[in-house]
């Protein structure tokens, strides 16, 4: 292709220049966001050398190949350290496919449309919070689609987690012992609803509450002793403030208010993830600090198709690797040509067990696909790998699960605590505990996102 005329080092120089200046600019051959905003696909934004496996490896690994212990050394420069460990030493295999070039496959359509419509209207106020140019709370989409700083990129991944106005994720999670056996199984629901920055639902901001960012609840349905355990978190719009937390524990049989600064421990025995890990942006972003740009360039990660199992009635995914061959979701990755790797420190959590988190952001959609946490000694602690992508099978078969069309979503998360070798595998399923995954249902506020809902969901 003619794009090769830019030569092998063109992209490297492009990204190195940004690293030296500490300023981000997306797109290599053409500016990314204007291309998307014009309704174009993005195959002409990045050269082949950074958008294909062949380009990254000089043809030694090809699109469609399986990344495994035999070829991972050729790709280790484009992988986070935990994934590399999993493939090189634990038998994890990762399927690959061609880089996604359709922006509609990188985020929900309404979110993309709002990002285009509202492009250029976001700015930080004196407190560091994002405001629309008229001073109101952010009105939806990525506030900084062409993020130039780490803070802007963090704002993008925090203000809207699921990229829908409202999500109801039925989740099934297995937590694995170091020997690969299953120690814990949980069925639970994770429900989100944005109060501000809505892109689909009317009533924006929700009931005029421009001081609220989102409502989020999690409630557990199995096993028996945790059935009914529920937490409701209400996020202030002000990102310097902790969310309010209400909880229902079956032992108490009533809703009680909880402190919310304990965000670095599992909710229940078994999971290796913390509330803080969610979406690689689980805390208000202004409770973190010392944002740094660590890396720019192509990277490998989940996106596009293949991470949704259209062949399983409940969408459950195949497993691979580990001592029992069940330690990892069999995932589909692609070359993400433009990745921003940021680092941030939990400055408002002096006793947090982690010293920093590296967040891997797909610059095409400004969505995080991985977060690697480091302990206080600076050693790698765990990852939080999002299986983002479309509800489209590896062979291109779509699952029309939202308004008769495929949807973009997270699909699974691999959370691997490499220090204890315990792994958590929450995955999005059609149904768990009697609840079905669905999106953008405004009635879910009353059903799942209020204190009385917590009480009703409790047993």
């Amino acid at each position, binding site marked *: 292709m003619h794009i090769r005329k830019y030569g092998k080092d063109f992209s490297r120089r492009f990204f190195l220049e940004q690293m030296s200046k500490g300023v981000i600019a997306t797109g290599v051959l053409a500016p990314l966001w204007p291309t998307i905003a014009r309704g174009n696909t993005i195959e002409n934004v990045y050269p082949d050398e950074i958008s294909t496996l062949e380009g990254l490896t000089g043809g030694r690994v090809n699109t469609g190949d399986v990344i495994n212990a035999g070829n991972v050394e050729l790709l280790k420069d484009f992988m986070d350290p935990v994934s590399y460990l999993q493939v090189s030493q634990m038998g994890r295999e990762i399927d690959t496919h061609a880089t996604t070039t359709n922006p509609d496959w990188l985020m929900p359509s309404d979110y993309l449309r709002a990002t285009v419509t509202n492009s250029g209207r976001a700015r930080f106020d004196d407190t560091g919070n994002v405001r629309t140019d008229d001073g109101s709370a952010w009105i939806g989409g990525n506030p900084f689609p062409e993020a130039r700083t780490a803070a802007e990129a963090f704002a993008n991944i925090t203000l809207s987690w699921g990229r829908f106005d409202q999500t109801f994720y039925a989740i099934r999670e297995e937590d694995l012992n170091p020997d690969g056996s299953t120690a814990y199984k949980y069925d639970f629901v994770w429900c989100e609803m944005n109060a501000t920055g809505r892109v689909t639902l009317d009533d924006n901001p929700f009931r005029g509450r421009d001081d609220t960012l989102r409502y989020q609840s999690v409630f557990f349905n199995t096993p028996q002793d945790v059935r009914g355990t529920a937490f409701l978190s209400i996020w202030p719009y002000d990102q310097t403030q902790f969310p309010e937390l209400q909880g229902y524990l079956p032992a108490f*049989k009533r809703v009680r208010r909880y402190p919310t600064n304990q965000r670095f421990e599992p909710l229940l025995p078994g999971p290796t993830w913390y509330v803080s890990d969610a979406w690689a942006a689980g805390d208000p972003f202004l409770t973190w600090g010392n944002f740094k740009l660590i890396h720019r360039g192509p990277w490998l990660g989940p996106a596009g198709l293949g991470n949704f199992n259209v062949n399983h009635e409940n969408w459950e995914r195949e497993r691979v690797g580990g001592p029992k061959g069940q330690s990892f979701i069999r995932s589909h990755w692609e070359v993400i040509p433009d990745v921003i790797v940021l680092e941030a420190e939990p400055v408002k959590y002096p006793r947090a067990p982690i010293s920093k988190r590296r967040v891997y952001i797909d610059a095409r959609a400004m969505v995080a696909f991985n977060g690697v946490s480091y302990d206080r000694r600076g050693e790698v602690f765990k990852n939080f790998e999002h299986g983002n992508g479309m509800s489209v099978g590896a062979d291109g078969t779509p699952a029309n699960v939202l308004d008769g069309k495929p949807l973009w979503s997270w699909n699974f998360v691999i959370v691997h605590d490499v220090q204890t070798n315990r792994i958590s595998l929450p995955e999005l399923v059609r149904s768990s505990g*009697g609840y079905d995954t669905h999106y953008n249902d405004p009635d879910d506020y009353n059903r799942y996102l209020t204190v009385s809902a917590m009480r*009703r969901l409790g047993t």
Partner: protein
Amino acid sequence: MKQAKLFRHALMTVLCALPMAAVADVSVSITGFVRQETANAFSDANPYNQGYGNLFSGRTVVNSFGNEIVRAQPTSEPNWSLFATRGELDFKFRFSDSWEGFAKIRGFRDWRLEDEFDGVDHFGSGFDGGDGSTLEFNGKDYMVDLPALYLDYNNGPLWLRIGNQQIAWGEAIFFRVFDVVNGLDLRRHSFLDVAAEEYSDKRVPSLGVRGSYRFQNDWEIEGFVQRFRPSVLSPLDTPYNFIASQFVVRQKQGWDDNDDEFNFGARLSGRAGDFDLSFMAVSRTNPDGVFRWTESDVNPFVGIPGLEPVGQLLSQTAFEINPAGVWSADEWFHYAGLSRLDGIGGLNASVLEFPAAQALGAFPISPETCAAFGLAGDLRTCAALELDLFFDPNNPVAPGLGPLKGHIAREYFREEIFGAGMTYVFQGAPNSLFDQLVMRIEATLALDRKFTNLTLSRDYIEKDEFVSNVSFEKYHRFSREFPATYFVLQWMHKSESDMLGRHVSGFDNDGVPKGEGSFNAVAFALQQPFPGLIWRADLAVLYDTNGGFLVQPGARWRPRDDVQLDIYANLIGSNGGNDDVMQTFERMDEVFARFTYYF
């Protein structure tokens, strides 16, 4: 038995609903567990029990006449307070976004290891055909019930829960302030389960409708109407009983008189600035009930010529001749103290309110009557003389009746309770003492609440009672390696009664109470989870400011999602004087363990 029928119908409804639900494409989720629960006692036997702890059994006392009295009853110290298997099965039905259903089947069997407590009915409630709750049946050593069987309806801001259910209000833990809707069922390990689990297994479920409506500003009004159910006491002579078994507790009539009563109430809760506020009002029949002397209806001389009229009179008193009763005035006064009753006043009430007692020669204790014995200034000795006169068959005055059991009736009365509560979360520098410190205050006022008269008279004590709780709660992370430690410190004040509902005027009691002005207790608890939450260390301390304490250290181990082991100890003590609530439980020290398999 109508209760058993009702239970069977309810159970059949649940079981029939399963295939129907499957056919109707209703989502059904089933979970459950089997658990072995064991408690090994390591202190003296429970003094409130007959064969296992009466402090006078086998002991020689010299009565008012100089006669040696030996309470001729067997006694032994049991080892196993609890050796039970519990199974629970939960069914959750999801019919639509608006309708859901939930049913829980609970079975509990006490195996009575080493034949201890054999022959004792462990689960008979004493009322309503012996059943503790509406959907229950039981035998001497087992019970099966449906503590939850309800439908949930949700439509926008409206929520209704219809059926058999528990209702828990308030946010205070350990102490019950707002939590006034349901009584407690103490047949399964009494109050002595894991403190952090509170009363979730104890609240007596009942049929009712509960609902709430949430306004646009997120203030919420909640209300309920629920059939009255009494608290269920540990039956006499069971390991955790705390009613002296020289009594016969008659509960049937009290229930029959109130079984058509309904409780109702409302609560308003919401946010004002940084404060969570709640206000409540409840009209209820107090499930704890009150006790008074009642006719024994036992004529021990039926068919015995000459004595039958005496027996007829005796049956119209509160007493029954029974070797398991009180044998001496010493025993009478000692147990009056333990029971926070008035030994002299109790005797008087049993005489003055029962003409038949007077016909048998009993007389009230007063300076005037005691003057005849030269004891006008020593009413206690005078009362002892009269008591021994009746207890001692060999007294030199007239043949006594022998050991006597006292019959008491449990009755229930309506009351109105009003309350207000507030929660505030302090903000401070990260990791400082005040950062995210949660303060809660709850207070209620019960109007014209009735309490058991210290004399067991039918003229109950009636007072307004103020109950308040102040608590501070915090998660604090001491290190980066360990999850946060949970602390809660609480203070409770009750103006009229202790945690068991006994009026404080009966405290500081050696058989004749001096009384206390109020009840005050402090509770402290902490939980320290270990990394991964597989292990958790617990400590709960309850301290009655009059000198009693309960210390409950323990550990929980959860190596897998289907297995859990809990090991705890209850260390209970008192400085004596019958002036603190924990003295009642001080001989219930134990180590208890629970092994659970979840499925």
